[in-house]
């Protein structure tokens, strides 16, 4: 088996195409493992991993923890709410303290862009970025591409539209990097207030008409409106947002072709997608969650093999 070109997973933009293929092939194997009756392999019995979350997370944290445990790694969890961070400890000190307890790998979510890169520069462990502000969320993008590959056979050449709040979204940014790297065509769609002014410099198209965007695409990745990140009002009301950028069954059925619906979760049902869309056969939302564990197992396994 090959190895990754990187020591850390800090963002998709630091990976090459081969890395992604390697992660996918490894994830194929682990996906088979987690569907066995004994869902666990002993690969990382000598590895200790700290999940450090400076921002709330439910599914990403669970998914990482499950992935780590299914690889038989020792796992410790740490959330900012219960930590000395609130007492003024710096990020480097917090992590170095944890590393002194002989931790090999750190999975970190942090509200500031570049926090993982900063940490990788200053501490000695292997770092996995589980989301850093509006910068990257690489494992999410990997599992999204993996899920597209699973449903449509390939990512290359597919048309993917990412709908919603692109401005505050690390999922959007990582997805753009990942999809472009694999040869997909990408458009973003949303109100202009939530699209970065220079987004086209990343090689993506901009479409503000949702119907046009959906008719163009093979896959629509519906992002959540992150109310907690909106410091000012970018649109008048959620209701009005939904009128323009929400996907309902009627819209979906009226399209020229059957598209795939994705969502990184958690869903605001009735806002970006309606319940009947989320639960329709076109939706692969729950596949994404399942694939998330396999992808994270693959990433951790491959990075751990570089530690040894």
């Amino acid at each position: 088996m090959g190895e990754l070109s990187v020591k850390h997973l800090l963002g998709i933009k630091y990976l090459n195409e081969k890395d992604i293929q390697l992660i996918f092939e490894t994830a194929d194997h682990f996906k088979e493992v987690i569907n066995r009756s004994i869902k666990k392999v002993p690969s990382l019995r000598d590895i200790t991993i700290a999940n450090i979350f400076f921002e709330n997370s439910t599914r990403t944290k669970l998914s990482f923890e499950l992935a780590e445990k299914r690889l038989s790694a020792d796992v410790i969890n740490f959330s900012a709410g219960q930590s000395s961070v609130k007492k003024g400890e710096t990020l480097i000190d917090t992590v170095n303290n944890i590393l002194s307890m002989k931790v090999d790998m750190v999975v970190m979510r942090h509200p500031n862009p570049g926090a993982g890169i900063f940490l990788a520069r200053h501490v000695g462990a292997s770092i996995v970025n589980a989301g850093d502000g509006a910068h990257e969320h690489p494992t999410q993008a990997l599992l999204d591409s993996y899920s597209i590959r699973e449903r449509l056979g390939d990512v290359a050449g597919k048309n993917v539209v990412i709908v919603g709040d692109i401005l505050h979204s690390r999922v959007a940014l990582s997805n753009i990097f990942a999809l472009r790297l694999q040869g997909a065509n990408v458009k973003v769609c949303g109100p202009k207030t939530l699209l970065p002014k220079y987004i086209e410099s990343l090689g993506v198209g901009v479409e503000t008409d949702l119907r046009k965007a959906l008719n163009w695409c093979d896959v629509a990745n519906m992002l959540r409106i992150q109310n907690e990140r909106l410091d000012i009002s970018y649109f008048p009301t959620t209701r009005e947002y939904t009128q323009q950028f929400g996907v309902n069954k009627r819209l979906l059925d009226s399209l020229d072709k059957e598209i795939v619906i994705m969502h990184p979760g958690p869903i605001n049902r009735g806002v970006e997608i309606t319940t009947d869309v989320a639960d329709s056969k076109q939706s692969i939302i729950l596949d994404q969650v399942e694939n998330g564990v396999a992808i994270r197992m693959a990433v951790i396994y491959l990075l751990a093999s570089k530690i040894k």
Partner: protein
Amino acid sequence: MNILLKSAKIIDETQKDLHLKTRDILIKNGNIAKIAPNLSAEPETETVELDNLHVSLGWFDSSVSFGEPGFEERETIANGLSTAAKSGFTDIVLNPNAHPVPDSSSDIVFLKNAARGQVTNLYPLGSLTIKSEGVDLAELFDMKNSGAVGFYDYKSPLQNSNLLKIALQYSQNFDGLICSFPLDAKIAGKGIVNEGEVSTRLGLKGIPALSEELQLVRDLFILEYAGGKLHVPTISTATSVKLIAEAKKKGLNVTCSVAIHNLFYTDETLEDFDSSYKVMPPLRGANDVKALIQGVKEGTIDFVTSDHTPLNIEEKRVEFDNAAYGSLGLESAFGVLNQIFDTETAVDLLIKGRERFGIATPTIAEGAPACLALFNPDVEYTFGADDILSTSKNSMFLGSKLKGRAYGSISNGQLRR
């Protein structure tokens, strides 16, 4: 103490007979006694012989921050002025960003006193408004009488347009200089770096060029209406250069400066989220840098500044979002400028700007007080930790290839190197 400078190549375009000539310079009791080839040292004279020694008028910087009072751990006035002197600067304008901010006559007197006896002269700016809160004008006239050379709410944009109008009107009878930082805070929002391709790629919140230009346009309109003297510290965009040029064409009494790092780096340096490059105004794109350099060459931008901002490591060695804005600049100023421009231009830029703040411009002439920068313009080196003289070490130029280094300066009858 008398000083004899041996074989000094003089850079002074205002004096045709001395410019680019190599001379010995004898300084007696603080004044230039003799400029001639081959002078011999009299008793009790310190002879200074340095490799490839060049001299010019002492350099001037219009935007320098230290930390005293309140942030002495960043920099003291004594070590700050010593750093300035060793870096070739004989006159600096001190930003009003100590704690408390200098917003009264006694604060200005404190700063002037703290700087007494140093090689480099300190000229303080007073805060424009009480506590720099942008609400009520401070006692500008009283501060001016105590030595304040201008009034500025340090890098804190004046949100109240009427306040700027009133400040410009009120300061006219005592010829006060009003400084206004060009940033529309609402448009800038929570931005921390230039809005552009790089910020998009990095997910960092952007400060649109618009936020600077909008505020600048407002300020220029207010200046046109109210009269008075306006200085715009540290512009950073191509359109700002254009706006200033148009304003000058109209005859408005406006000057502006640019930070040297905004002429040297683009926002591409942010790729690794290195907080050393976090400055306000932010490093902009290549087109802006090009326009700023052109603006400097054409004189639209009146003078350059190191925008020297010492900060503790604790304020920098944190996540990019949480890092403070600013970089050291005095130590690297000449080496950077001398990379961008030819030496004569670099020196010329470091001399300009005094008159705007009512500070006398010295001359190199027999009988005149000696106010000289000593430097070697040809030495090429990588700027390293050893080159930092400041108490804080937050230089964005660490690791950069620079050309030219100051040996020190002579002023107030002393040599500091």
